[in-house]
């Protein structure tokens, strides 16, 4: 009896105090931080994580393409999401989910990139010599791109006061490795632009010319640098960078629709790649919000874009010439990339159909394609030379030739260029040519995230609101105003 008691007691004591190993459990789908960022493969995998963040629906996956068009006059929001109602009405408040999403995911990309950039010098394996420069280039590319996308929403348009206008915090050290100031203040618009230019310039030198669909290349970096120069009004720089891109390995697709339906098209310079695995949810993708079969078409083509955009592309003279020949003109961007072939019906507005993967939400999100740079260079040439520039007209006509089709009275195809292409004589002065380029740009790039930024650049009211007005500069998310006392809110919020 005594022995039994002793054994049981003994066993109990051992069990109770001798088995600390019993409490050792390990996570199964995560790894400890000190076990990664060690090898070239680790960094490649981390880089994929950074692209994944960049691809988030509140960032490049949807928001960057959609919001600029509904803030501006291209689209109207007709859906039920209160956050986008407010975006479209230029009435966001600091708790707006889209505002928070853009800020949060931008910094997610930046921290992902910072971790890679800080770790890369510590990697010492056989592959780093070959892969290292590209990995560094991709990380810098993503960081620079994220800063440029964010500064255009959270800061005033680039201009004379940019050295003092607040934008977003400038974070170039990683959070996890203890290097970063976790409570940074906002840097100036100018400083953020400078960081973006610096990152992308370095990236351009490190990146390869091709890198697979959805991944950064030297061309993608150059495209960003061109647009940054363009956005800053540095037109000579934009013009020359655009010229380099135009001379690069890109070609317009035969029809506008092909860029959107064929993921290995010739025109893409940079897109974010989406598969059916990326965004299986209903809410948050480009087709969800744009396509009539997504959620019924939350975003409609505004009457202004129909009337003063699509409706104004053909001049009276061009139309008269076509009519005289019994030729009818069709804009493929209207007939193949909008619902109902672009005809206005009484059942409501027209939806854009650039994004039609509403089943699996797997449309790639466009960032840059060749047409944008044809029009960029055209505009930049005119602005630099301040004259009716023949090269600019030729560039503009490339886009128009691709977009329009013509048929004669018998229904046979005829050359549309004859009717829609401009000649120098069509323009009385440089401004008229500029107007035509900006109009073409508005229609060609509609719902690809340019219109708001273009209006900011050229200083034209955004749906009646002056550029730079408080309502057009997004607030710092309340979440970070509350979490970081170094942040100062934008005026008007």
């Amino acid at each position, binding site marked *: 009896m005594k022995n039994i008691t002793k054994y049981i007691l003994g066993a109990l004591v051992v069990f109770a105090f001798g088995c600390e190993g019993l409490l050792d459990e390990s*996570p199964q789908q*995560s*790894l400890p931080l000190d076990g990664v960022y060690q090898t070239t493969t680790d960094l490649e995998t981390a880089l994929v994580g950074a692209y994944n963040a960049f691809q988030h629906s509140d960032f490049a996956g949807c928001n960057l393409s959609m919001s600029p068009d509904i803030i501006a006059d291209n689209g109207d929001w007709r859906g*039920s999401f209160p956050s986008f109602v407010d975006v479209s009405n230029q009435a966001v408040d600091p708790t707006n989910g889209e505002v928070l999403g853009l800020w949060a995911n931008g910094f997610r990309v930046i921290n992902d990139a910072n971790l890679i950039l800080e770790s890369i010098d510590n990697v010492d394996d056989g592959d780093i010599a070959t892969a290292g420069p590209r990995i560094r280039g991709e990380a810098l590319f993503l960081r620079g791109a994220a800063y440029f996308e964010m500064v255009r929403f959270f800061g005033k348009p680039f201009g004379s006061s940019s050295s003092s206008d607040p934008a977003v915090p400038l974070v170039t050290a990683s959070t996890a490795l203890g290097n970063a100031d976790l409570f940074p203040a906002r840097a100036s618009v100018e400083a953020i632009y400078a960081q973006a230019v610096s990152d992308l310039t370095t990236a351009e030198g490190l990146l390869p010319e091709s890198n697979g669909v959805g991944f950064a290349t030297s061309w993608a970096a150059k495209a960003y640098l061109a647009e940054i120069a363009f956005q800053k009004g540095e037109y000579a720089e934009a013009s020359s960078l655009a010229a380099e891109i135009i001379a690069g390995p890109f070609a317009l697709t035969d029809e506008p629709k092909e860029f959107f339906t064929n993921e290995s098209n010739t025109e893409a310079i940079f897109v974010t790649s989406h598969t059916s695995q990326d*965004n299986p949810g209903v809410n948050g993708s480009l087709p969800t919000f744009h396509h009539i079969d997504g959620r*019924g078409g939350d975003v409609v083509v505004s009457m202004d874009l129909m009337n003063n955009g699509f409706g104004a592309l053909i001049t009276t003279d061009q139309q008269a010439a076509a009519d005289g020949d019994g030729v009818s003109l069709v804009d493929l961007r209207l007939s193949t990339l909008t619902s109902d072939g672009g005809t206005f019906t009484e059942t409501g507005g027209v939806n854009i159909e650039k994004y039609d993967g509403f089943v699996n939400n797997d449309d790639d999100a466009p960032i840059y394609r060749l047409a944008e740079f044809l029009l960029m260079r055209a505009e930049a040439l005119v602005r630099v030379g301040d004259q009716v520039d023949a090269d600019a007209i030729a560039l503009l006509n490339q886009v128009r030739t691709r977009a329009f089709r013509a048929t004669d009275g018998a229904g046979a195809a005829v050359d549309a260029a004859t009717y829609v292409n401009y000649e120098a004589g069509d323009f009385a002065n440089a401004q008229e040519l500029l107007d035509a380029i900006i109009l073409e740009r508005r229609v060609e790039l509609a719902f690809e995230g340019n219109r708001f930024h273009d209006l900011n650049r050229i200083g034209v009211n955004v749906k009646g609101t002056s550029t730079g007005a408080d309502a057009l500069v997004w607030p710092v998310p309340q979440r970070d105003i509350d979490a970081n006392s170094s942040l100062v809110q934008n005026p008007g919020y």
Partner: protein
Amino acid sequence: MYMKRLFFLLVVCLFSYSAWAQSTVSGTVSDADGNGIEGASVNVKGTTVGMFTNESGSYSLRVPEGGEILVFSFVGKQNQEVAIDGRSTVNVTMTDADVTLDEVIVTGYGSQKRRDLTSSIAKVGSDEIKNVAVSSFEGALQGRVAGVNITANSGTLGAGVNVRVRGIASINASNQPLYVIDGVPLDGIQGTALGGPGTNPLININPTEIASVEILKDAAATAIYGARASNGVVLITTKSGQGGRSRVEINYYGGFSDATAVYDILDGEQYAQLWNQAGEAWAAARGFQRSDWYTQGFQDTVIGNELLTEGQQPYSDWIDLVTQRGFLQEVSASASGGDANTSYFISGTYRDEDGYVVSTNLKRYSFRANINQRVNDRLTVGMTLNPSRTENNRQNEDNNVASPFTYGALYFPHVNARDDNGELSFERPENGRGQFAGTPLGNIEGQDIKLVTTQLLVNTFADVKLSKDLTFRSELGAASIQVTQTGKQASYTTDGFPIGAANAISNANLNINWANFFTYNRTFGLHGLQATLGSAFQRVDVVNLNVSGNTFADDRLKTLNSAAEITAGGGSGTSYAFQNNFLRVNYSFNNRYLLSFIGSYNGSSRFGAENRYGFFPAVSAGWTISEESFLQGNNAISFLKIRGSLGQTGNAEIGNFASRGLVAFGRDYAGLPGYELSSVENPNLRWETTTQLDLALEFELFNRINGTIGYYNKNTTDLLLNVPQPLSTGIATSASQTASPNPVALQNVGSVRNAGFEIELAADIVKTNDFSWNLSVNIATIDNEVTSLADNDGDGEPDDILVGRQIYRVGEELGAFYLVEYAGVDEANGDALFYELDAEGNQGEATSAYSTANRIIAGSPFPDYFGGFVNTFTYKGLELTAFFQYSVGNEIYRNEGRFIMNNMSSVWNQDVRMLNAWTPENTVTDVPEARLFTTNGSQHSTRYLEDASYLRLKTATLAYNFAPNVLGPVDLRVFVMGQNLLTFTNFTGLDPEASGQAVGTARSGDIFFSRPQSRTITAGFNLGF
């Protein structure tokens, strides 16, 4: 009681070998009416000799040498000790025990009589639980126990239930108590969520099998569970057999259920009227007439949705189409009994309940065998075995627009639900833009979602009698819980549009628990000593799988095998372990001075490497004043005790690897795997510590009124706080491609205080032979305050934490509503107005610019006081019980208001009160002007915050108990019961009881289309023999 009998049996058996016969004593044991009591135990004091009485109450016992006193005991009767005095016949009349004071309370690794308790433990017995027509046992506890606030997070069938013992102490760790069923801690199980707070993981626990539920409230009661006890502990004890008394019971009830309330929304014409009104206002703001839209054609700068033709609109009452009067029934049968060596309880239960939402149904099959066997004088073994299965045919939850009840409230009323041929119609109305696909009725018919929970609970034990005073017990238990949910959404549903979708998830949860402990029990003269020393180890392992796909050839195909495209698939696993070493010593002197010490030394895999183990002590003391000579013989005060306790417990309900710095995978891009930083390391992370003081006075007056008046004060420190990190840190907490990250650092920082009074009173107001009226009341207050928080940004001030519309701020209640104050409508122009704060922080000017208005502490999710009261009237066999539940002083934020009460700023249908929107003719109103596609007052504000105080007739029961012997050996009770029959409240939402949040969360009272409780009327019987 069962524990006591078990112990008695053990004592009887263990020492029987040493007895030999000297004389025989026989007799009859009867009750006050002279009826023989079957199954009463008779034993010879100081020996192990004993037996049970037979059917007529007779016994015949051989008394060994030296046996002088017989001890008679029976459940519900006072024990009696009778000297034999050389007699050969000893007849005994047993009187009823004091049900309150002699009740045995399960305490965790032991039990105690309530009379001797020095801690705060509430007990709810089988009678209060078994006939209540709720699917979960927690529902039957609502309003029964002072200081325990129980709210279903939705009225959805099988929804989770929040149980809050003495307030809310934790901001980021769970606030649910620890559940222990027959000794096995049952945790680590999650409900499954479909756009809502999720299902109840404890749904398989069958209320009719429960013998008692003990809720451990203070530190002295809970400290034995150490690091996870600070939210209280709920001990569930299932029924067991009684040796010597066979009994068969058959229970049945059946009835109907309806929603307690539904939304009052616009019909087709009203919708058209408000739509047009809103459209005109929108157009007017742009300087033209809405009716001119199409004549102006391309000349306008904007386009919008069509004007609706008033007077010609069809109407579908979607809410009516998606709701029904549901049928519910439950039948159970059990047999129990045994002999001196064996006792058993076996039972089976079938439950079938329709929800009031069409197509929802819950079925439960539950079986149980609880068997104890005395192997020999020293060893007793036993097993509880409980296989069960629940099938929940459900619909999406409240937060998901595909939920028929939610969508029914929002969807266009001015369309036809079916076409002329009776087929589902999906015709879009003229203004049908920006709407999801599918209709509410289509979703009902085309969604097929089935959640099956298969659960096996098993616990085995061995009791070894090491000496007269010392017992060793080893328990090995396991809970194996398999949750499988399959869903199919037809091509015409919101989620399945346009080609059909399907998904499946599986969660397999294995919970192993091994406990070993010694119990020492001895009386030395006037000193009584009871001690428990032991150890327990628990490991929980979870494996999750999920697959989704789409593209179906035919809507009749139901499984993923027919999906052409598999869009997502995943598998994950996690595990954690707890280790607990515990000691409890109870000491009593002269039956009146009671002292107790409890300590546990706890470890968990969840804590940081530097802080694996912690020590949780508690002391308690009691003084039974009524035992003192100066109160002896006092008729007024039949019992009086004061008691108090002080101790520490912990809360460890955080993520299994929350202390680690991790990168998370699944951050994939272009078909390649990726990872990101998902959490930062905290090697010092440990449990939250709650230090709790508990004081109480227990009394019984005139043998008629008994009660407890208590006070508690809980200070929770070292909160497991997700300290918000700026989003600019870029910590990527979520893999979702649509949700935003929420970077936090989990730290032990901050503190919360909960204090309150708890009063429980029960009185026999009238007590005659034929008629009695008993009233029992409980009331509890909660004084909750956040006492410190992290100073995250180094400015010397604790930082507020905002989650949704709620705030954690020092000096305020935890999760107080923090909202801009709505100032009504500008009579001049119909603008919604909000208050700004002036320089002194007081209410200032009203402004229409929401962005410049200021948020204020606007309300509290905590009631000032809450509880319940029961009136029970009996007249002969007739019994009427009315149980009311109440809560006073809490607010609910109706987040759904931004959709259904936004004065037509989007296409959604509206509450009828929106018809009172401002117009130039109707300027005095609190509903702003309806402006299509324009936010006017639907921002988050106190407009949607409401007082949710209520008084509810929770259950009303009319029953008839047939008198003994009327039906021979059969006893029968027949009853009619109504639930949620009446509610008195000013709350304008559907249900003031809704909590709207997942069960563990600190936030509550922010609801989004939460479905209301059901109103049920059932009739049934309990038959036994």
